C-alpha cells in the first residue's frame, strides 16, 4: 500500500503537480519541509530585530514610517509561513519553542549587528535582494501552502528592496561622510549576504533531497551566482566598491568570478557564535514571555464567551 502511495507521490512531482496538506507524502519530505519552512518563518521574525533597532532613530518621519511598515511586513511573512508549516502537522507552540530554546535555526545574516543607518539601507538592498532571489524560486516549490505564502511574500518584498536601495542612494550621493558610511555597510554586509544562499553545492547536506522533491529548483551556487551578477552594477551606480579583490567579469561564463565567503565564519555563526546570536534569542524570549499575559487574557475571555453561548 505504502509503495502505491509513494508511486503516486513521485508521479505528481514528475508532472509538476503541487502537493497539498491532505495528500500522502513521505515522512522525510514532511520533515524536510517543516525544517525549511519553520527556519524561514523564524528568519522573518528574528529579522525584525536588527531593523527594529533603528525605528526610534530613523533620520526622518518618512524613513520611520517606511521602516515601521517594513518591519510589520516581516511579522506578517512570519505568520504566513508558520501556518504553512503547521499544515504539516506541527503546532505553533512547538515551532516557537524550538526557536526560543535555540533548537531551531534561522538565517545566519540576522546575527550581525546594525551599527549605522546605512545598515538599514544595506539590509533592504542586499539581504532582501538575496531573499527575493531565493523566494522567487520558491513560488514554484512543490508544497502548495509554502508556494502560496511565497507568492504573497514576493509581492511585498519588492518594496523592501527598493526602499533599501533608496537609502543607499541618498547616502552614496550625499556628503563624503555619508558615502563612507554606505561603503562601510557594503563592506560588512557583502559576504554575510552571499552566505545566505547556504553552503557550496558540494557541501550542502540537504540539497539533494530538496532538488529531488522539487522543494528547491535551483542550487545554492546557482542562486549565489545570479545574485552577484545582478548586484554588481547596482553597486557601481552608487559609486561603491564591492569588497572583493577577485571580483571580475568572466566573458566565457557570462557571469562574475568572485571569492567564496568565509565558510568557517558561516559555520560558527550558525552554531551560535555570531556577534548577536545571544542578543537575538534573549530579545525573542523576552518578547514572548512579556506577551504571555495577553495570550492568557485572550484565552480566558474566549472561554468566558464560549461558556455563555453554551449556557
Amino acid at each position: 500500500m505504502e509503495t502505491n502511495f509513494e508511486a503516486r507521490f513521485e508521479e505528481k512531482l514528475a508532472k509538476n503537480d503541487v502537493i497539498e496538506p491532505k495528500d500522502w507524502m513521505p515522512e522525510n519530505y514532511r520533515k524536510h519541509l517543516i525544517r525549511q519552512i519553520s527556519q524561514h518563518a523564524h528568519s522573518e521574525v528574528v529579522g525584525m530585530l536588527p531593523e527594529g533597532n533603528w525605528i526610534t532613530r530613523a533620520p526622518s518621519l518618512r524613513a520611520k514610517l517606511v521602516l515601521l511598515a517594513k518591519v510589520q511586513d516581516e511579522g506578517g511573512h512570519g505568520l504566513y509561513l508558520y501556518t504553512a508549516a503547521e499544515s504539516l502537522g506541527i503546532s505553533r507552540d512547538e515551532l516557537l519553542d524550538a526557536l526560543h530554546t535555540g533548537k531551531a535555526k534561522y538565517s545566519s545574516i540576522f546575527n550581525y549587528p546594525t551599527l549605522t543607518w546605512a545598515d538599514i539601507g544595506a539590509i533592504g538592498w542586499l539581504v532582501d535582494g538575496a531573499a527575493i532571489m531565493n523566494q522567487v524560486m520558491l513560488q514554484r516549490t512543490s508544497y502548495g501552502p509554502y508556494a502560496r505564502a511565497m507568492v504573497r511574500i514576493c509581492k511585498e518584498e519588492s518594496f523592501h528592496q527598493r526602499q533599501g536601495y533608496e537609502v543607499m542612494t541618498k547616502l552614496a550621493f550625499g556628503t563624503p561622510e555619508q558615502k563612507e558610511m554606505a561603503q562601510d555597510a557594503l563592506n560588512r554586509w557583502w559576504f554575510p549576504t552571499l552566505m545566505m544562499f547556504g553552503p557550496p553545492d558540494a557541501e550542502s547536506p540537504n540539497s539533494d533531497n530538496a532538488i529531488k522533491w522539487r522543494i528547491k529548483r535551483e542550487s545554492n551556487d546557482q542562486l549565489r551566482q545570479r545574485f552577484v551578477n545582478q548586484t554588481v552594477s547596482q553597486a557601481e551606480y552608487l559609486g561603491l566598491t564591492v569588497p572583493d579583490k577577485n571580483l571580475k567579469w568572466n566573458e566565457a561564463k557570462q557571469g562574475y568570478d568572485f571569492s567564496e565567503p568565509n565558510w568557517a565564519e558561516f559555520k560558527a555563526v550558525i552554531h551560535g557564535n555570531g556577534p548577536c546570536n545571544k542578543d537575538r534569542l534573549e530579545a525573542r524570549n523576552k518578547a514572548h514571555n512579556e506577551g504571555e499575559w495577553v495570550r492568557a487574557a485572550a484565552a480566558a475571555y474566549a472561554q468566558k464567551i464560549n461558556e455563555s453561548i453554551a449556557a
Partner: protein
Amino acid sequence: MADSQGPLWEVFVQKKAGQPFVHCGNLHAFDKEMALQNARDLYTRRGEGMALWVVLSSNIVSSSPEDMGSFFEPSNDKIYRHPTFYQIPDGIKHM
C-alpha cells in the same frame, strides 16, 4: 489545531464589491472579532480587499484527495453539458 495561540481560522477576501470571496490564507485567533481584525492586519495591508470572511478551519468540510477520481468522475463523460457539444448551422449569429 488549538494551542496557546487559539484555534485556526481560514480567511477569504473580496477584492471589489460584486466579486467572489477568495481564500487567501489562515491565522490563529481566540474569537471571531480578533480573527477579523487580525485578518485585516495580515491580509489587507495594501488594499487587497473591500470585505473579509473568517471561518473556523474546523468547520470546513473538504473532499479528500484519495477519492478525487471517483468523486468527480460522474461529470467527466457528460460532454453534452458543454456548449461546444452542439452543432449550430453556419450563418447563425449571436449564439
